[in-house]
C-alpha cells in the first residue's frame, strides 16, 4: 500500500466542520477503548457523562455555571494562541484574579454598596490576572524565555502562595481554624439566577468579552497584528508591528479575562477563598482545549465552552456513580485534544491510499 500526502490548496468551510465532527467522533471512540481497557463500560460511562450534563434541568444549569469561566478564559486564550503565545498559565491567572478580587471584597465590601463594590472587584481581578500574565510576556519578549515553562511555573508559585495566604495571614476569624478566608460581605456577593448557581453578571461579562474579542480579532488593526505575529513573525518585524507592545496587550487581555473568571468563581460560587483546587477545578487547562476546539475563533468559544463544561459536569457525575477518580476528565481532555490536532492534518492535506496492483 502506498500513502500519498498532498497539501490542499483551498480549505472549504464544509470540510472544516466535517473534520471537526469526525475528530470528535474518533476521539470519543478512543476514549471508549481506554475505558474498556480499564474495565469501565464505555457506553455507560459516556452516556452517563452526557446525561449528567445535558440530560436534566439541573445538569444544564450546572453546565452553564461551569461554562462561564471556560468561556472567559477560552476567549482570552484564542487571542494568545493566535499569536503563538502559549499561555498555559491561565489557571493561576484565574487564581490571582480571585485573590485580588477577594481582597477588595473583604476590605472595601463592608463600606460600599453592591453597584460599586462588584465592578471594583472585577476590575481588581482583571488587574491581578493581567499582572500575573504580564510577567511571562515580558520574560518572553525581552529575554526570549520560553513562555510555556514560565506560565507553568507561575501556576505552581501562585498555588503555593494562595495556600500560604489562606493558612496564614488571610485565615478567617470566623472559620474555626479552617484554612479559608472570612465570607465576603453581602454587597460583594454576586446574585444568582434563582434555583441555580449561575452568576448572571459574570455570564454577561463572558458574552461581552466574546463579542468584543470577536470584533477585535477580525475587524481591527490589533487583530490583524495578532494574526501576523502568529503566522509569520518575520513579516511582522518588517511590516513595523511592535512585537513587544502587541504581546503585552495580548497577555493583559488573556490574563485579565482569566482574572475576571476568578472573581466570578469566588464572588458567585464560593464566597470565600479556600484551596486553589476548590476555587478552580482546572478551568485554566480545560480552557486550552476550549480555545482549540473553537479553532481559535472567539465566536466559537461559547459553544465549545459549553461542550467542555458539559464534560466537566458529566465527569463529576461518573465520579460519583462509577467511583472514578477526578483525573478521568483529563483523559477526556487529552484524548480529544490529540484527535483535534490530528484532524487538522487531514484538513490541511489530502491523503490518498493507493493499493499496489491497482496502479497509480
Amino acid at each position: 500500500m502506498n500513502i500519498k500526502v498532498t497539501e490542499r490548496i483551498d480549505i472549504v468551510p464544509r470540510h472544516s466542520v466535517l473534520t471537526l465532527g469526525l475528530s470528535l467522533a474518533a476521539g470519543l471512540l478512543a476514549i471508549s477503548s481506554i475505558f474498556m481497557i480499564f474495565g469501565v463500560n464505555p457506553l455507560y460511562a459516556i452516556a452517563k457523562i452526557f446525561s449528567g450534563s445535558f440530560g436534566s434541568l439541573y445538569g444544564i444549569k450546572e453546565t452553564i455555571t461551569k461554562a462561564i469561566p471556560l468561556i472567559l478564559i477560552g476567549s482570552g486564550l484564542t487571542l494568545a494562541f493566535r499569536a503563538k503565545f502559549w499561555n498555559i498559565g491561565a489557571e493561576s491567572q484565574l487564581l490571582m484574579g480571585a485573590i485580588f478580587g477577594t481582597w477588595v471584597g473583604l476590605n472595601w465590601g463592608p463600606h460600599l454598596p453592591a453597584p460599586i463594590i462588584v465592578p471594583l472587584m472585577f476590575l481588581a481581578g482583571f488587574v491581578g490576572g493581567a499582572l500575573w500574565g504580564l510577567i511571562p510576556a515580558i520574560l518572553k519578549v525581552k529575554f526570549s524565555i520560553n513562555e510555556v515553562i514560565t506560565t507553568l511555573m507561575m501556576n505552581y508559585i501562585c498555588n503555593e502562595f494562595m495556600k500560604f495566604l489562606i493558612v496564614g495571614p488571610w485565615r478567617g476569624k470566623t472559620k474555626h481554624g479552617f484554612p479559608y478566608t472570612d465570607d465576603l460581605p453581602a454587597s460583594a456577593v454576586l446574585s444568582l439566577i434563582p434555583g441555580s448557581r449561575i452568576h448572571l453578571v459574570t455570564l454577561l461579562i463572558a458574552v461581552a468579552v466574546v463579542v468584543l474579542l470577536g470584533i477585535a480579532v477580525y475587524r481591527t488593526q490589533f487583530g490583524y497584528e495578532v494574526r501576523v505575529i502568529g503566522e509569520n513573525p518575520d513579516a511582522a518585524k518588517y511590516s513595523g508591528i511592535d512585537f513587544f507592545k502587541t504581546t503585552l496587550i495580548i497577555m493583559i487581555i488573556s490574563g485579565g479575562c482569566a482574572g475576571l473568571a476568578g472573581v466570578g468563581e469566588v464572588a458567585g460560587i464560593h464566597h470565600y477563598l479556600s484551596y486553589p483546587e476548590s476555587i478552580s477545578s482546572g478551568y485554566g487547562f480545560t480552557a486550552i482545549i476550549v480555545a482549540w476546539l473553537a479553532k481559535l475563533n472567539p465566536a466559537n468559544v461559547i459553544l465549545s465552552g459549553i461542550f467542555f463544561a458539559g464534560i466537566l459536569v458529566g465527569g463529576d457525575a461518573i465520579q460519583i456513580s462509577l467511583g472514578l477518580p477526578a483525573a478521568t476528565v483529563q483523559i477526556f481532555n487529552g484524548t480529544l485534544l490529540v484527535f483535534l490536532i490530528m484532524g487538522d492534518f487531514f484538513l490541511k492535506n489530502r491523503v490518498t491510499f493507493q493499493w499496489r496492483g491497482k496502479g497509480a
Partner: protein
Amino acid sequence: MEDIIISVLQRTLIAGTPLLLATIGEVICERSGILNLGVEGMMAIGAVTAFIVTLTTGNPWLGLVAAIIATALISGIHAFVSITLQASQVVSGLALTMLGLGISGLVGKPYIGKPLAEKMATWPIPILSDMPVVGVIFFDHSPYFYMAILLALIAWFVLQHTRLGISIRSAGENPRATETQGISVYKIRYWCVIVGGAFAGMAGAHLSTSYSKSWIEGMTAGRGWIVIALTIFALWNPMRAIIGAFLFGGIFVLQYLLQPLGISPNLLAILPYLSTLLVLFIGALHDSRKLNAPAMLAEPYRRGER
C-alpha cells in the same frame, strides 16, 4: 552538624536522580528537533506502572522495565502526531501530559495508600562506600543513581562523539540536509522521542519505587515541567544536565531543611519553581546565540518539501 550535611548531600543526590534521568531523555528528544512537553504525564505513567508491577510481582526491576515499556509506547503518540502529522508539538505535548495524568489517576486509584513491602534496595559500592563522608554521600545509593550518572555520560558520548549522535543533532539542526545524506529524519526523530519517553518512565519508576514506596495521584508534582527548564539550563548537553539536576535536587531538599526555622512550608514549596524561573532568567542574560538550541526545535519537518 557533620551528620546533617552528609544527610543533606545524600538526599540531594537522591532527589536529583529522577530529574537527571528525565532531562537526559528530553535532551535526546530535543536534539533531534522534537519538543516533548509531555514529560510530566509520562513520568506519572512511569510511576504508576512501576508501582503496580512492583507491588504485584515484588520485584522493583520488573517495575522499572514495565515503566520503560509503558512510557515508550505512550510517547509514540507524540511521535506520530508531531512527526508524521506535523502537528503543533506544543499542543501535542500538552495533550500527552493531560492524558498521562488522567490515565495514571484512573489506573492508580485502587493503589493509593498501599505501601510497597520493599523499595529498590541500595547498592553500596564495595570499598568505596566504606570511605568516610564521601562513601555515604556518593557510593551508598539505589541503582537508579548510578544508572542516571552512567546514562548521562553515555548519552553525552553518543551525542557528541558518534555517527549516530551527529545524525541526531543534524536532524535537529538541518533536517533537509540530513535527508540528502540518505538518513531518514523521521526515523531518527521517532526513535529519539521514544527513547526520551523511556527515560521519563525510568524517572517515574524512581519516584514510586525508590524515592518513596507508594503511589499518590499527582506525585510528580511538576517535576516534568522542571525537566523541560533543566533541558534549556543544560544547553542540551547531558553532562551539564548532571549539574542542573542535582542543583534542583538540592533545592527540593532545602525546603525540608528550612522548615524547622519557622518559614511557612507553602512559601518554601515555591522554591523549586522560583529557582526554575531564576535559572532561565540567568541563562537568558547570556548571548542567545551561545545558547546553542537545536535550530529546528519544534518546527515540523515535511519530507520532500522544497
